[in-house]
């Protein structure tokens, strides 16, 4: 009987030790916070099973206009890496206390290529309140070459934090770069077929896309869910007189009434989702592939 007791005690000890070991491995996972979904996606692809990646902005909010509260900041302070888009994307950065050594400014490598926005209107939409687009254009990842550079910055930060993951991260970066390069060459191929084709954008978020792929893009300042007032429509008509666009790019599918009014003017609506927050289905790559497909349709029209 004592032998059995000792044996069961040893077994219990072993179980406890293995449980502890498992939890230690769990704790060893890198805690990564990303300020928008593209960065979270890059981190998930590169760090895969060794990290838990969180996107603190709620699912229904554009992370560009999200502001962390004390609780969210407290959670970020406990992270191992905080991935920032840079290009003035994180307007809240000056208002919070974060460990600077853990911040990774993923766009710092092309800081000198940022697009400045002059004389923008201040406006408001949705529950996030008013905002303006003055300052620096921040949708950096819609230039897929810049996206690749941001992915590389994420990889570098991961390797600096966990040198033992170097080969795995670099392998992941290789396939991610291949995917982004595929998107890049596809958009180049599409736009090269009709250079200078006039296009409209519903919201000024496509600056880097337009620059990289030489789009002849003019922008209004509309929201997919809201009917623009009459003044905006007359403004659009004026623009169209000089800029005969047949397509308007939208961040999301526009309201049916807006789409109908547009098609009455001969303008089709095409979704090119910047995918700043986690999509309901699919991932960054899937959304971007659909975007490219939508763009292709616009370029093939007539």
């Amino acid at each position, binding site marked *: 009987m004592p032998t059995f007791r000792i044996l069961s005690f040893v077994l219990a000890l072993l179980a406890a030790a293995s449980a502890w070991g498992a939890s230690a491995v769990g704790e060893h996972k890198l805690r990564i916070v990303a300020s928008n979904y593209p960065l979270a996606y890059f981190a998930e692809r590169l760090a895969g099973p060794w990290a838990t990646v969180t996107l603190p902005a709620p699912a229904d909010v554009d992370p560009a206009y999200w502001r962390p509260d*004390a609780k969210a900041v407290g959670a970020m302070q406990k992270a191992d890496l905080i991935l920032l888009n840079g290009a003035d994307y994180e307007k809240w950065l*000056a208002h919070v206390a974060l460990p*600077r*050594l853990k911040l990774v400014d993923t766009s710092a490598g092309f800081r000198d290529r940022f697009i400045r926005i002059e004389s923008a209107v*201040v*406006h408001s939409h949705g529950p996030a309140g008013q905002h303006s687009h003055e300052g620096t254009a921040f949708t950096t990842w819609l230039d897929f070459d810049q996206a690749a550079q941001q992915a590389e910055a994420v990889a570098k930060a991961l390797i600096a934090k966990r040198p033992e993951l170097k080969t795995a991260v670099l392998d992941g970066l290789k396939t991610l770069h291949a995917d982004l390069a595929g998107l890049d060459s596809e958009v180049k191929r599409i736009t090269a077929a009709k250079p200078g084709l006039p296009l409209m954008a519903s919201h000024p978020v496509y600056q880097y896309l337009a620059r990289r792929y030489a789009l002849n893009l003019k922008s209004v300042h509309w929201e997919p869910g809201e009917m623009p007032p009459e003044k905006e429509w007359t403004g659009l008509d004026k623009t169209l007189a000089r800029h005969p666009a047949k397509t308007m790019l939208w961040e999301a599918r526009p309201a049916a009434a807006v789409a109908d009014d547009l098609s009455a003017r001969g303008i089709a609506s095409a979704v090119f989702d910047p995918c700043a927050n986690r999509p309901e289905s699919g991932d960054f790559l899937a959304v971007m592939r659909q975007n490219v497909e939508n763009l292709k349709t616009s370029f093939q029209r007539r």
Partner: protein
Amino acid sequence: MRHDFYLAWRHLRHHRTRTLILVLCLSLIAALPLGLHRVLDAGEYWMTRRAEATPLLVGARGSSVDLTLGALYFSEAGVPAIRMQEADRIAATGWADPLPLYARYRVQGQPLVGVTLDYFDFRGLVPAQGELPAILGDCVLGADAAERLGLGPGDTLASTSENAFDLAGTYPLKLHVTGVLAKARSPDDHVVFVDLQTAWVIDGLGHGHAETQMAAAQPDSPFGPATVRRADAGLLTYTEITPENLGSFHFHGDPATYPISAVIALPHDVRSATLLRGRYLDEKSETEIVRPLDVTRGLLQNIFRVGALFDGILLLVGAIAFLLVALVFALSLRLRQREIETIYLLGCARLAVLRLLFAEILLIALFAGAVCAAVLAAAAPYASDLARHFILS
């Protein structure tokens, strides 16, 4: 033997005043050098441990002692400011991680130090109550600072400059206490910590304006009224940061030019440390790099020299006191001549007198020892404080 002690005890009790004076003299003479060494040891421990934990320190060129005392021990004298770009430069070398800190102000006698959140990790400072600062205007108190100010999480603390030499206008800001740090037995215990950006707001580099709401009817934008920040008209600036006005806080100018007191550099390895130190060899540069351990070693050597001098003096005083005690006993023996004769007449041996004397001396020594131990025990918690005062002022 028991009777000897009984007689000795009765005798000592009978001459209370004499006994008390003897015990006090002896105990103080023993306590002084022991206490002094305790203070010196505490100071050495306190300074060396801190310096050992801080590999390299970059600050304004000048006195490396002032720089070390200001940045590691938050001395009242402070250090001349350098620019934030110094921290960026260290980071850019890839050889070391920079920890900028800004220790310019004091709040109600406690040092107010602006740090990045990395500092808490580096020093192993964790909140015993509440949280670390999260939002602009938050502060966390060192254990001793919290006790002295009588504040805890949820309280507020007004930042006003109390430095008479600081003529620059500062931004009066109501700080929100978010937490109290666990006692670290280091200079950090006395500090009110804020995030570097909050320190810059206090410095007047960042502020919040009241925003004016433009007429809602204005149709210049399709989706609602516009808000315009008016820089003119000297609008109300906030002295407390609240969730409502946080968004209006902004900084002016280039953050790289913002002031800091020093940068703690954490080199990745020995080679990086050497390379980094090489960067600061230029005598004309405005900044210098020091190894705090070298600086404190120099300081401690001076302090120990003073300590040795004290020891010498105390040894002399001790010898004199011993002679005086011997004299007191010799005199008391003469006064007790009749008493001793009575003991002989009672039929006691000569040895009995000696034993009685020995018992008396032993009792006095025991009492003195006890008093000495009590004094030292009572003073022990203040040893590091005393050392701090001794070294920093």
